[in-house]
């Protein structure tokens, strides 16, 4: 909780960002990395997400700023991936080469997730790395719970294909 003292006095934006960075920066970076599959892009996303959280601190009602930071990371990552849509589509077609060189020395699951389309990637990240419910995931992504279920199921099938060597399902 980003409050101070017995009277639950709210922290200033700088204090809140300082506390958030100390406690959640590694986790936030990993989430950004899982979404982007690129260290450089992940760092860029995390920096911008922290800055936007700092700028919006006065408007954040929740004492814990991490949900805001997390949603910002997801949205920034999806925007970045949309900008690179051609590259992403190319990468999806060439599944084995999909993963950025940064992931070349990483183990399979993260690498496989990075080959998913952005929305499926976000569903996997939020459901299985952030442990959010389907409704929480739907809220962040701006889609229905049914949409989350469908995207997650497709993602799991595709991951099984990649990691298990089976046939690929269509998206």
């Amino acid at each position, binding site marked *: 909780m980003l409050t101070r003292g017995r009277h639950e006095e709210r922290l200033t934006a*700088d204090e809140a960002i300082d506390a958030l960075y100390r406690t959640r920066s590694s986790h936030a970076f990993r989430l950004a990395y*899982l979404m982007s599959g690129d260290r450089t892009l992940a760092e860029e996303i995390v920096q911008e997400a922290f800055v936007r959280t700092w700028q919006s601190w006065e408007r954040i009602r929740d004492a814990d700023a991490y949900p805001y930071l997390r949603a910002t990371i997801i949205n920034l990552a999806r925007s970045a991936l949309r900008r690179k849509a051609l590259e992403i589509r190319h990468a999806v077609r060439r599944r084995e080469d999909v993963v950025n060189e940064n992931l070349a020395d990483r183990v399979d699951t993260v690498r496989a997730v990075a080959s998913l389309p952005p929305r499926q990637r976000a569903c996997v990240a939020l459901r*299985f790395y952030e442990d959010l419910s389907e409704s929480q995931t739907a809220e962040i992504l701006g889609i229905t719970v049914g949409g989350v279920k469908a995207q997650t199921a497709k993602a799991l099938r595709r991951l099984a294909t990649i990691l298990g060597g*089976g046939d690929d399902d269509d998206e």
Partner: protein
Amino acid sequence: MTMSEQHIRRSLRTELETIHPDDGLRDRLDARLRSRRAARPTNLILALATAAVLVAVAALAVSIKPRAIEQTPTADPYASVPSPSDVNIVRPSPSVPHRIAALSGVWEGLWDGQLPSRLTVERISGSSAQVIYAYGVGGQIQRPGWRRIPAQVSPNGTISWDNSPQGAMASSICLPGATRCHIHWTFSISPNLATVQGRRAVTTDVSNYINQVTMRRAGSASSAPVASHRWILGLLAILAAAILVVGGVFIGRRGSRNVGGSVT
């Protein structure tokens, strides 16, 4: 083939545990925050500059434009109406009924929308008054003139007098060919005391007719609407400037509060 959710969950945690941000990330984040902070005072300066421009517009609207209008000869239809140098308006006695006392002062209007005229009520009591009636150039009258006249006052707030004009006034008011001409003048104040309704009933041996005029207090007839618009414009500009200043100060306070601490 469907992957176990638990397996994905476990694998992601295990694999991502080995990934850490660079040590320099914090420094780069701080640098970015500093640059965002630096941009905030710019918002305040921009708001103040815009407010200053609006205040200048308000000042122009309130002061400079009216003078320009007043200096335009065509803007004052009563410029041709003469006025004696010894005009002396005496404040009515407190015993004079309010409705009659309200007639005191200077009234202006156009007879039949053409001839500019001015009625100056110098002294007035419950039963009598001394007025100056002056007229300018308009209609058939080419030579302006004025007269100081003793008049009667009726309890309902009407000033009246009679005369049989001669000379220029007779030739312009009374019909050509008339050998006898009599005019009955009345000036009645309106219920809201804002205007005076003038009426002159002309009786000649040729025909009879009536002219009318609505008079307003001098200086209020043509310039009032302009002044009204002027002040509305000025007030709007000042209001907009105030909003900008308050908004700018608010943004500035937020910025300075955030700048007060340190992320590092």
